[in-house]
């Protein structure tokens, strides 16, 4: 941890009590002037400190900002999110993460933003997100995996988010194949993954997650009204994003480790628990046309199996899925 992270951690551990400038200076090994400067910087981010002569400083309020220090303090992961780049506003966290990947950033590097101006969806669709309300993140992975297996990680990510929502927010969410996350049939989270690889070696696999946390109904653009929702809408109260993000990273790391050790089978089982697509009549839409059938399940690689009326089974690798009843 760097000085800013250590400083924030000290204040958080003090639980609102005063810490003297002298003590901070001694424990961090920096001058009192340096400490004052760091505290001023935190104030600019929205933190509120009380400073009292002879007593020192105490943290009165920590805002829900996704700056690196706020995420790092209290994050229990080993790899994921150990290096964080935060931007108040950025075109796309995916683009930034790709740039960092090319520069050699390590596995687990996280790019988060308060606002994305060109958030990416599937097939060039736009992912809408008003400033300061949601989690827009991209996570860099560098798995030593067969390329063919990489799509499984998109299903894995969905499991991590759904389990976090359940445990952390008490919200029961479902997965629409392959990895859209729905609450009461409305989309709350989109996951998009970009792979850069040579035929036999993965350079980077960047997992992008857009989670609607505190968006209000009036903030959704007209074209997604009725099909999108946020945690705030579902819960009826705003949520802090940072602890949620920490929990997603923790759960994702746990599942990623499990996957690398034991393969897709245990992840698949958990995915099936939350799947809303399976056992339903569905319409599959692709650039080349559409078909309807009964969603039987996924195979051991994560591919959707759709049984047609004639009894034949079609494997679906990528499509928009519409669920009927």
């Amino acid at each position, binding site marked *: 941890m760097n000085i800013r992270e250590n400083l924030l951690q000290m204040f958080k551990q003090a639980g609102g009590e005063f810490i003297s400038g002298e003590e901070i200076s001694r424990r961090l090994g920096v001058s009192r002037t340096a400490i004052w400067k760091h505290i001023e910087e935190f104030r600019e981010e929205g933190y509120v400190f009380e400073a009292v002569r002879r007593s020192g400083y105490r943290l009165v309020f920590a805002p829900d900002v996704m700056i690196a220090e706020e995420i790092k303090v209290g994050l229990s992961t080993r790899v994921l999110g150990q290096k964080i780049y935060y931007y108040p506003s950025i075109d796309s966290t995916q683009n930034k993460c790709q740039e960092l990947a090319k520069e050699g950033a390590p596995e687990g590097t996280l790019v988060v933003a308060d606002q994305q101006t060109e958030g990416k969806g*599937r*097939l*060039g*669709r736009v992912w809408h997100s008003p400033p300061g309300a949601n989690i827009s993140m991209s996570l860099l992975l560098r798995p030593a995996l067969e*390329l*063919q297996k*990489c*799509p*499984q*990680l*998109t*299903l894995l990510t969905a499991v991590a988010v759904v389990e976090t929502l359940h445990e952390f927010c008490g919200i029961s969410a479902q997965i629409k194949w*392959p*990895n859209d996350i729905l609450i009461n049939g409305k989309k709350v989270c989109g*996951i*998009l*993954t*970009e*792979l*850069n*690889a*040579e*035929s036999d070696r993965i350079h980077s*696999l960047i997992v992008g997650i857009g989670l609607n946390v505190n968006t209000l109904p009036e903030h959704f653009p007209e074209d997604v009204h009725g099909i999108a929702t946020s945690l705030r809408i579902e819960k009826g109260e705003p949520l802090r994003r940072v602890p949620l993000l920490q929990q997603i990273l923790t759960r994702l790391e746990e599942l990623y480790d499990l996957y690398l050790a034991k393969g897709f089978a245990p992840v698949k089982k958990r995915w099936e628990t939350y799947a809303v697509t399976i056992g339903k009549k569905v319409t*599959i839409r*692709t*650039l*080349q*046309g*559409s*078909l309807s059938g009964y969603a039987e399940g996924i195979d051991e690689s*994560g*591919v959707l199996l759709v*049984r*047609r*009326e*004639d*009894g*034949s*089974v*079609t*494997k*679906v*690798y*990528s*499509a928009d899925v519409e669920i009927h009843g």
Partner: protein
Amino acid sequence: MFKIHEIREIIKLVDQSSITEFKVEEDGMKVVIKKGGSASVSYVAVESAPQAVPAPQEVPAPAPQAVPPVPAPKTEEAPAPASQTAPVAAEPVDDTGLHKITSPMVGTFYKAPEPGASPYVQVGDKVKNDTIVCIVEAMKLFNEIEAEVTGEIVKVLVEDGQLVEYGQPLFLVKPE
């Protein structure tokens, strides 16, 4: 390479017979037909060896087909087979000395970053090792395929939105 009517014929024969499984391999293309025993489900899994130009029967066909498990009609538009000894090719391409850019995974082929955008590469374009030539998507994982060769694109072998198999040739490149 099998033609669609041949596969259809084989399926009929298997269907009428008492055998439950049938495999055949020719020119790097493998056809496996399984009957689901007492269940009514039967399906074809066409797998391809790396050199083959497979029939992407998993591509959702626009309309339900009367004959259950036959490859989608796309087979007939499939690009010229890799091997020149293959009996039939809609449009034979002399690929002697040409480099094939192949798909590293099963998925949907996209020639452009988004529908309506200009394609990553077209015939006549010069590519370098790290030039992105297309995207292959599976389960919302987007794989940007790099040329991994320096040269000129001489043929695009697949259609936008088509399902491609592992190892399926996507482009022919005249190396520099």
